[in-house]
């Protein structure tokens, strides 16, 4: 099987090289059949990489530990669901996922644009195949997913327990789809420059893909934040970590592009800016992949070797150089067709929004790469922390949210006073009312959060007014009931109203962020059973400890598993069950917490800490069962107004518990793993009998749920905007038949 995988990669590399040659030759000499062949080689690449990916997936599901990546990131005890997801947890597997998704998305865009702008698409084909070839070459020469060891190890290391979280199945494919989709507008933008066809046509062809890139990247970022909040025992959703920033940067420039392209379509302006944004977005996406995959910031983070650094730096340098050359050499063609008429116009607001987004991106870029910059300039490694990021990003975010309320209602070209009064009275009143209500309710600290609430209210006012007017107009014209009119309104103009819904979602999201980060109560302390503490308005008491032991995730129902459960039942209080999150922990220690407010019971929380098998014989026949990395399983009571979040870190390092493990290691042989787990159960029993003080982390933060709800609204709005409208399809069919008729007339 590994040989098949390796053969696929070599073949894929050959297809890429051929396809690049054929496309470029075809467009240079005007021989269409060659560029057609180049396009087909993208389809072939997609087919080959699908086979390669399937080979690796099968190897994971069949526990084929001869594959190095399988042995490193999977094991027999890893639950099947997570075996399937483990494919992309390794460096090699994630490169394969990247290349595979790139080939699929490229095939889709080239299929949909077949027969249009042939010269641009031919160049785009070559560029996309160039990216594909780059990643495949990495897999052939540097990080080989199909490398094998003989003889095969009998057991693997297992998937890192921190990654055993349901969204891990979906987060990387989403993020990578976003990254790969970002390269599509880049390829078409470069193609348009190379072919010297810089009107809005190429933008129209790839607009939907730019939107899709933005959509997938956004979903990926949101899922990452969700994972961080509910899996890492930290309680935050964003920490300005280099890897988070890497995915946010192309999303910001992509957002800027989605706005400014409208100006090019409508007014023929901002051509240089648009093409630069597209090139920057694609380059930032590649840099994001590079940052995640190369460990280039290991000077600070210092985690692991950078084997992929040099090829990536070469690729990025080439991309930047080519972008600058193309834009500069074609600057005459990129002249604007119109001038900005007034600073009070939709064009100007869009421009301001673009500047804010690019400024945000610059701040984040500077902060993320600061360790490298500082090293280069001062020779010292240094880095900036979250407070530095917050100082710049918070005011910029405020302006951004405000602009998202102004943009949709201000007039094109030049806003008049009458226009302003007509459109801005309601939003301003709504924002002021919000301010008055907040102040009256006693919310006077945290001016930045209050400002964000008012900006959010302004957006709700302005977009709500737009929807209201649209519905009213339809009702007046067609006499429809309000819900029907609303649906019809959105369906008639998906892009516009989808965009408005996105703006609402962004405002909701930022209100959630502002509230949860500013009005949070957190507490970290040690508690013994029976003790309680106050967090904000809530009293949380540690009722009793819990313990559960899983012999072998897949054998819980087998005769051996039943026999073991009979033995384990004698240990009081210890349950024999998979850990509550079903992640394959061998031991899970937790707590039952009672949450109450003003004497009234609110919720019962059961946070736990999972201990995993390290499969490392040096930790002893018993010790290895819990020698892996412990992982917190957070318990939270999510609500519309607030989340109560809890995590526990039990203490298993007491002398008594250590003695049990040491005794087990000395007396129990490796060959009978069933007995080893009994020792773990005995230890859990001892823990239950005399529970030592455990460390707890509690957070009560308001409106966190609205971050996820806002994200869903954004996603929903984006889907509405992205979906091909039936009228558009009809128009295209009509246009095509008309073109054919015209063609016939000319011939006749």
């Amino acid at each position, binding site marked *: 099987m590994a040989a098949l995988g390796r053969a696929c990669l070599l073949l894929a590399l050959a297809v890429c090289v051929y396809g690049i040659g054929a496309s470029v030759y075809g467009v240079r000499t005007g021989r269409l059949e060659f560029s057609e062949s180049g396009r087909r080689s993208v389809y072939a690449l997609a087919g080959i990489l699908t086979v390669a990916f399937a080979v690796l997936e099968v190897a994971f599901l069949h526990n084929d530990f001869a594959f190095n990546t399988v042995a490193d990131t999977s094991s027999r005890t890893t639950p099947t669901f997570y075996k399937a997801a483990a494919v992309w947890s390794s460096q090699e597997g994630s490169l394969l996922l990247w290349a595979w998704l790139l080939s699929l998305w490229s095939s889709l865009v080239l299929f949909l644009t077949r027969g249009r702008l042939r010269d641009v698409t031919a160049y785009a084909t070559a560029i996309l195949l160039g990216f594909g070839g780059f990643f495949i070459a990495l897999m052939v020469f540097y990080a080989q997913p199909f490398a094998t060891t003989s003889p095969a190890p009998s057991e693997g290391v297992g998937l890192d327990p*921190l990654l055993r979280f349901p969204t891990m199945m979906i987060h990387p494919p989403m993020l990578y789809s976003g990254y790969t989709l970002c390269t599509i507008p880049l390829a078409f933008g470069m193609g348009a420059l190379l072919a010297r066809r810089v009107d809005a046509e190429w933008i129209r062809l790839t607009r939907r893909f730019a939107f899709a890139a933005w959509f997938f990247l956004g979903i990926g970022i949101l899922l990452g934040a969700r994972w961080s909040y509910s899996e890492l025992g930290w309680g935050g959703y964003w920490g300005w970590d280099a890897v988070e920033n890497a995915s946010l940067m192309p999303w910001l420039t992509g957002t800027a592009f989605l706005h400014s392209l409208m100006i090019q379509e409508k007014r023929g302006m901002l051509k240089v800016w648009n093409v630069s944004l597209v090139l920057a977005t694609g380059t930032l996406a590649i840099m994001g992949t590079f940052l995640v995959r190369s460990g280039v910031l290991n000077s600070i983070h210092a985690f692991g070797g950078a084997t*992929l650094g040099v090829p990536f730096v070469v690729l990025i340098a080439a991309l930047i150089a080519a972008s600058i050359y193309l834009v500069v050499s074609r600057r005459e063609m990129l002249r604007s067709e119109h001038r900005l008429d007034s600073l009070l116009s939709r064009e100007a607001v869009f421009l301001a929004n673009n500047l804010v987004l690019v400024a945000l991106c610059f701040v984040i870029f500077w902060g993320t790469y600061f360790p490298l910059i500082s090293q280069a300039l001062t020779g010292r490694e240094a*880095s900036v922390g979250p407070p530095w990021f917050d100082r710049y990003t918070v005011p910029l975010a405020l302006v951004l949210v405000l602009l998202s309320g102004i943009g949709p209602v201000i007039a094109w070209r030049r806003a008049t006073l009458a226009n302003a009064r007509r459109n801005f009275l309601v939003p301003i009143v709504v924002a002021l009312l919000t301010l008055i209500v907040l102040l009256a309710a006693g919310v006077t600290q945290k001016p930045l959060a209050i400002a964000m609430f008012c900006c959010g209210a302004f957006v709700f006012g302005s977009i709500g007014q737009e929807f209201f007017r649209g519905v009213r107009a339809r009702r007046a014209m067609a006499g429809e009931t309000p819900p029907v009119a609303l649906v019809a309104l959105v369906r008639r103009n998906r892009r516009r109203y989808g965009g408005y819904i996105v703006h609402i979602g962004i405002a909701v999201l930022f209100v959630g962020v502002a509230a949860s980060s500013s009005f949070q109560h957190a507490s970290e302390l040690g508690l013994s059973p029976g003790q309680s503490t106050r967090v904000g308005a809530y009293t949380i008491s540690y009722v009793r400890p819990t313990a559960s032991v899983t012999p072998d995730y897949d054998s819980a129902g087998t005769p051996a598993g039943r026999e073991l459960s009979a033995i384990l039942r004698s240990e009081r209080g210890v349950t024999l069950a998979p850990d509550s999150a079903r992640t394959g922990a061998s031991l899970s220690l937790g707590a039952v917490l009672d949450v109450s407010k003003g004497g009234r019971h609110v919720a019962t929380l059961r946070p736990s800490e999972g201990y995993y098998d390290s499969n490392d014989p040096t930790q002893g026949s018993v010790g290895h069962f819990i020698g892996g990395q412990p992982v917190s399983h957070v318990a939270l009571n999510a609500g519309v107004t607030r989340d109560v979040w809890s995590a526990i870190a039990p203490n298993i390092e007491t002398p008594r518990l250590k003695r049990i493990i040491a005794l087990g290691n000395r007396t129990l042989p490796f060959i009978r793993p069933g007995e080893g787990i009994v020792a773990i159960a005995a230890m859990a029993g001892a823990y239950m009998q005399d529970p030592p003080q455990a460390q707890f982390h509690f957070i009560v933060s308001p409106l966190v749920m609205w971050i996820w709800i806002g994200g869903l609204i954004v996603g929903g709005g984006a889907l509405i905007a992205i979906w091909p409208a039936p009228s558009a399809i009809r128009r295209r069919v009509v246009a095509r038949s008309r073109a054919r008729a015209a063609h016939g007339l000319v011939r006749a």
Partner: protein
Amino acid sequence: MNPARKRTVRLVVALSAAVVLASALIYTSFSAASVALSPSQLLRQAQPGRSYLLTGTVVAHSVVRSGEELNFSVADRAGGATAVPVAYTGTVPDPFREGREVIVTVQKQGGRYVGERNSLITKCPSKYKEAPVPASGGASQKQPS
């Protein structure tokens, strides 16, 4: 003022504003940054009251929890006997263990190194995995670690 001149003025004003803002950003980044030091560097050059990013590995058998405070020692990644004892409070990430690489913001207070609350970072599992050296061929730029 004619329109062309007006546009030029506007452009110059906008660009100057951008340059001023960018300079402020760059200036604050240098003054707000904490310097990353290895334990042996920290012992040599730490000044009381300044924050440093201490990077290194947690020394085996050095982790002791006493109430709120977590005490551990950090040694150079390259190995060696120099280790800095750190008194830390706040969130301890799951992957924190003896032998793991960590980054923690510390200040020298008297003879002690006190960790800033919630500043402890450990290796992130998926991203910074030790890159495997290719089995056959392939230039490897594995950094000395």
